[in-house]
């Protein structure tokens, strides 16, 4: 975000898996959101249930924020490694909260940093349970900025509702003692007094949650999936919210996931499967079948770094070209890559409509970074009333009755054949993964093959008109043009602002409706003096796509493939390096 904002505070909570890093971060986030502030969070965790090191980064601002910088004002150290790992991103006037009875602090750290010793454990034990350590930490953190304690108290009450009043009371007390301890004892320079403000109410959610909600509103009635980090929370969200309003099957493997969804979609219901790269690899054959049988389906692919199992809990944008070419043979598909929660919601709803209007597979390609990031959003951007359910052209009952058998694959100008569902009186609806005639029966001749192939591929032209222009931002004529897609939006936008502030005139184009490629993409590259494609991958996949599909050549790429997301600062630095600045 730009420096115009007056408040830009970054909290980071570090600890071992199982220590409650996520719960401290999550509750603080919600507290700030209810207090009228904007937040953006980033979660970094390992592929294990206990131990190791994970952290929760929480950015707090009075302006909407879309990315996490790599700097920290308040570090909460729940384990021994937190300080050592994060001390080099502490900014001036920052503070490290830790319980010195639990953690040793080296003299060097002591010399450089403001260590604020909070007796987390003592307070926890005093209030009744050593497990309350986290609650004390929440209170202590909040006390540092003198935020309204009642909001936190209210949240704690909600959270422990099922556990009874005693537990609630003890937790509130633990938090309060932490809060008061800070107020009374903190003497350092990291003091911001941030009062709750009356701002329009915001929702706070992750992008995976946004996809889950989007799917429910879009009328997705069937999800078949196999657990795979970082995709699982999509259906976990859906089940938690609407267990009795759709059917979920946890399958034996991902081959089953996609084919079960295809069976359901053929049956006439909106179906989705969710997975990550490795699971998608197993779905490829079924993905190709969706193409051949023209079965509408949505695949939510939440990426992590590959190859193979790679870094299973981390982030990467390395499955884009894979999705574009996945499945043997050639058939149209649509790829959306959300840039933020609102877009994840919008694109998910649109995905179901596109799938059914054009009888294609639509992939929502997201990556762990965004999937797990909480952000505050304006509820107006989840405009339920505006949602249209578009199921595409349907055959009339009359047609079904008068035609002996139904032409599921009728050759039409748009390539889209009117649809009917099996079980409709008098309708015989057939399709096959073998090349088929209009009735869905297997053929061998070249003419019918060409007809069906061309019909299918024509849909790409037809659906092109539903593809929205990419977003452009910044000055018309700039020295540097940044191009991005998907989850990098926030970091690139903030980098664009920072570069402009530093006198390097910069603009950007960001693509979320990634494939088919909108013509504005090529035009933007043509107009740009120097264009850099910013991607969380090694090979520059979107740059490849630009060259292949527009014939235009971006100047270069800014790539990162260490499993961690871009920070705005990283992009700024890389642009400057390329500019020789």
């Amino acid at each position, binding site marked *: 975000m730009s420096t115009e904002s007056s408040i830009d505070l970054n909290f980071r909570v570090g600890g071992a898996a199982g220590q409650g890093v996520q719960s401290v971060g999550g509750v603080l986030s919600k507290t700030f959101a209810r207090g009228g502030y904007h937040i953006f969070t980033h979660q970094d965790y390992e592929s294990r249930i206990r131990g190791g090191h994970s952290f929760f980064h929480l950015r707090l601002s009075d302006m909407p924020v879309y990315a996490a910088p790599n700097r920290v004002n308040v570090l909460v150290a729940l384990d021994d490694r937190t300080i050592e790992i994060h001390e080099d991103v502490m900014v001036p006037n920052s503070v490290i909260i830790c319980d010195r009875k639990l953690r040793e602090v080296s003299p060097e750290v002591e010399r450089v940093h403001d260590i604020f010793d909070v007796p987390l454990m003592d307070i926890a034990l005093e209030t009744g349970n050593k497990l309350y350590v986290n609650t004390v930490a929440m209170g202590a953190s909040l006390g540092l900025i003198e935020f309204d304690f009642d909001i936190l108290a209210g949240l704690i009450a909600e959270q422990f509702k099922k556990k009874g009043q005693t537990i609630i009371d003890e937790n509130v007390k633990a938090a309060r003692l932490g809060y008061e301890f800070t107020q009374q004892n903190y003497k350092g320079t990291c003091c911001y007094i941030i009062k709750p403000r009356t701002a329009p109410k915001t929702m706070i959610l992750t992008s995976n949650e946004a996809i889950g*909600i989007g799917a429910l509103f879009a009328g997705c*009635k069937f999800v078949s999936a196999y657990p795979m980090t970082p995709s699982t929370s999509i259906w976990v969200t859906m089940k938690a919210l609407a267990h009795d309003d759709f059917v979920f099957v946890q399958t034996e493997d991902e*081959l089953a996931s996609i084919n079960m969804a295809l069976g359901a979609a053929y049956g*006439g219901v909106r179906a989705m499967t969710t997975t990550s790269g490795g699971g998608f690899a197993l779905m490829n054959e079924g993905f190709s079948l969706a193409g051949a049988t023209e079965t509408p389906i949505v695949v939510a692919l939440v990426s992590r770094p590959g190859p193979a199992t790679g870094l299973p809990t981390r982030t990467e944008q390395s499955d884009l070209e894979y999705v574009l070419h996945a499945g043997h043979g050639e058939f149209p598909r649509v790829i959306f890559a959300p840039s933020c929660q609102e877009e994840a919601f919008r694109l998910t709803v649109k995905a179901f409509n596109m799938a059914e209007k054009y009888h294609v597979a639509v992939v929502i390609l997201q990556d762990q970074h965004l999937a797990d990031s909480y952000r505050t959003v304006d509820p107006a951007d989840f405009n*339920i009333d505006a949602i249209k359910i578009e199921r595409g052209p349907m055959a009339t009952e009359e047609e079904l009755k008068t035609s002996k*058998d139904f032409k599921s694959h009728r050759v039409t100008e748009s390539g889209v054949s009117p649809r009917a569902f099996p079980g409709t009186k008098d309708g015989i609806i*057939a399709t096959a993964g073998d090349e088929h005639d209009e009735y869905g029966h297997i053929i061998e001749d070249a003419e019918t093959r060409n007809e069906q192939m061309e019909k299918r591929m024509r849909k790409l032209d037809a659906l092109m008109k539903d593809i929205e222009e990419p977003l452009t931002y910044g000055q018309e004529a700039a020295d540097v043009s940044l191009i991005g897609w998907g989850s990098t939006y926030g970091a690139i936008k903030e980098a664009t602002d920072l570069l402009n502030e530093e006198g390097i005139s910069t603009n950007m184009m960001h693509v979320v409706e990634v494939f088919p490629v909108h013509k504005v993409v090529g035009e933007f590259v043509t107009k740009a003096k120097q264009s850099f494609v910013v991607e969380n991958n090694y090979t520059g996949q979107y740059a490849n796509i630009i060259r292949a599909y527009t014939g235009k050549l971006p100047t270069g790429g800014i790539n990162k493939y260490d499993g961690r997301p871009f920070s705005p600062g990283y992009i700024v630095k890389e642009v400057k390096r390329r500019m020789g600045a």
Partner: protein
Amino acid sequence: MVTIEDYESRVKDIAWCPGCGNFPILEALKQALVELNLEPWQVAMVSGIGQSSKLPHYLRVNEYNELHGRILPAATGLSLANHELVVIGVGGDGDGYGEGGNHWINAIRRNPNMTYIVTNNQIYGLTKGQASPTTDYGMKTKDEPGGIHIPAMNPMAVAISLDCSFVARCFAGDLDFMKEILKKAINHKGFAFVDILQPCVTWNKVNTYQWYRERVYKLGDDYDPTDKFAAFQKAQEWGAQIPIGVLYLFKRPILKDDYVPLQRGTLLDLQKEHKPSQFKDLLKKFF
């Protein structure tokens, strides 16, 4: 009244070898559907890839012709999307016990309401005669002239060990019996698994019509298919004597009944009634 003509497919060129055991299976299935007085539009078949997987093209029913080995996931999805459909899966032994093995054992466990027919010719027919999981030990194939050295799988025993709710075997050479078993399978509530001994006149020169005919015998009225251990023992018979009929019946919950929404109607109905506004309240949880 439904007649056999209602099931007449528009596809006239049947791509099976003359004499193939798939012909009587097709015939038996048609007759079973007619005798059950089911309209073609009420029936949806899901098949895989292989000779028998072409079967649904040869009768007039709704059809989703899947990939090799993926019949059961799609059929399960379909049966949940519209549980009023009569869902029948059909595919080969290679398709079902080879490529699709994992779906088979897991579909049995889930118990969707459908019939699953495996046309077991103990060979890969369409790909020209390689061994399948049910190819008899020692059988000579084109590319293993020395004989197959891996013992055959016993699908009956495996299905019983998984507590499959309906386990039956028929022989393609006995049309009437096949028809009766298929009727029972279709009427069964839950996953009805029917393995049909199907002579492949081109590639399997061992397990011929005659070979089977000399061996198969029908389970008598005194046979109790609900006795698991008896069924397991019966399932071991393969050689001089091969039992046909319903080997095992086991009462267990049907998949669809586990789902609250499906108690209100089909999922397709629910889909048709869907209004985004119905979920409006759910956003509250995110404030």
